[in-house]
């Protein structure tokens, strides 16, 4: 049975509201723990106020943050799933849902022409919203995830070299966190995504997905990556920067490392920080018309991280 495009549109509209208003439970718990551990007086005050802000957002159905970021979608297509009207109908549905949600929730219409700065007030335009696809074998459903991420500060890319090794990654990690952590430009404590390897666009994409699409508490199944996640989290919280750049221990709620096979001569690294308004929402749409809200985007499946030829 084909999935109607209208069902995708209605689901996406609801996801936009859920993302904008309800902080994901895994991140909220991470921030609560960071607040409880925090000894810096001002950092602790900030985190307590943030926890209160999330309660207000849910109670009054207001966006938790007025900078509703650049709304975008991640779509996982089951190999056996079919959309009535095909992928063109799906993309039209997501664009319509974005424009509607912008007016109804409301979201701030952030998307402007990059040179003229003209704002259509819809968050829709040239290459906006972005839609990223991935496939999943043996499935007849479609997972739609929306992510609302700001991102003027706290992300960086750098070409490192094999000789730079783990110390080099740590150095770049510190550079990025300290540079954007002062004055709290990155709106930390953040979920830090680190993409390592691939071509430069691959590592930038993976780092962003690692920050935005993995649950706090999850670990990369590769033991080398998992060990690095722990070390980087410890290092980030040792800097001495807390929420809003005040002295403290709460810079990083979690570090997620994702890897891609890369050029033998290089080690590109990208770092992304998903902020105090880490907004994401996922639903699975089944061919029988059921829509199942899901807490975990489950983006990094075994198939997505496959290494073999078949």
């Amino acid at each position, binding site marked *: 049975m084909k999935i109607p495009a209208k069902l995708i549109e209605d689901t996406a509209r609801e996801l936009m509201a859920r993302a904008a208003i309800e902080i994901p439970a895994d991140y909220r718990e991470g921030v609560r723990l960071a607040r409880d551990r925090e000894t810096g007086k001002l950092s602790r005050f900030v985190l307590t106020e943030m926890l209160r802000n999330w309660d207000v957002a849910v109670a009054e159905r207001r966006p*938790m*943050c007025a900078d509703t970021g650049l709304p975008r979608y991640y779509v996982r297509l089951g190999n056996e799933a079919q959309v009535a009207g095909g992928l063109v109908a799906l993309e039209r549905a997501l664009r319509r849902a974005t424009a509607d949600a912008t007016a109804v929730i409301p979201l701030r219409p952030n998307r402007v022409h990059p040179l003229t700065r003209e704002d259509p007030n819809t968050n829709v335009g040239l290459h906006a919203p972005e839609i990223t696809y991935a496939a999943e074998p043996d499935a007849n459903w479609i997972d739609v995830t929306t992510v609302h991420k700001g991102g003027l500060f706290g992300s960086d890319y750098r070409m490192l070299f094999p000789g730079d090794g783990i110390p*080099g990654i740590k150095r770049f990690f510190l550079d990025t966190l300290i540079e954007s952590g002062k004055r709290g430009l990155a709106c930390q404590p953040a979920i830090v995504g680190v993409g390592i390897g691939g071509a430069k666009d691959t590592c930038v994409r993976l780092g962003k997905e690692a920050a935005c699409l993995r649950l706090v508490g999850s670990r990369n199944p590769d033991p080398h990556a998992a060990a690095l996640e722990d070390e980087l989290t410890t290092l980030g919280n040792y800097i001495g920067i807390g929420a809003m750049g005040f002295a403290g221990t709460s810079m990083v709620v979690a570090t997620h490392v994702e890897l891609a096979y890369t050029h033998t001569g290089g080690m590109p690294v990208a770092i992304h920080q998903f902020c105090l308004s880490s907004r994401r929402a996922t639903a699975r749409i089944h061919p029988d018309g059921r829509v199942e809200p899901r807490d975990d985007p489950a983006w990094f499946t075994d198939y997505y991280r496959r290494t073999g030829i078949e």
Partner: protein
Amino acid sequence: MSEITRLDDVRMDEVHLTTPVQPADIARLRLGDVVYVSGVIYTGREGVYDHVVRRDRPLPAGLSELTNVNFHCSPAATVRADGSYRVEAVTATASFRFGQSMATWFERSGARVIIGKAGLTERAYREWFVPCGAVYLTTVGYGMGAAYGQGIARVRDVHWLAELGIAQAIWVLEVDRIGPFLVEGDAEGRSLFALANREIDARIAEIYQGLPKLALSRFGEVLSRTDEVV
């Protein structure tokens, strides 16, 4: 007033301001005080600054008399079919980018309290804020859109909406105990973030111990543009 030298020594006294904010109230604000504002405030960021500072366009009539509190932000707002407005959340935008404009802005707008994100440098406060008797309040978080939205009683007016769009227009907001904000730049040009940065910087050398210089440098890490990055 004794100077605060350690971040954890800030008293974080709760202060309630009404607009227009009087010079005596501005002078009393101490770094780290927790501030709530009632009265009228208005948004203004790149678009508004461009018109007022660069193109010398006057602010809408009566605005400067109504309030002297300028919020570096744009709201999550919508214009209803009947022409009325909804503002559900407000969050500040980073203020450093307005630094060069501030002296002219204070002179032309009459603003004396800036609310924004992440403040400016102590030098900016001393050169541009102090001579005008202006102070800087930072928003908290920075994503407290919903809680700040609660403090907005009514949209009183929107100016320059057609030219600048929803995100950049001047939103004139009637507010009731909107907050909390923190005093980041006081009347004498001291900065709360500068205090924090001095404590953070004291540890930086130790944090980088054992992490050698990278194989390939970038401009910014070399002393001069004629140096090489390899």
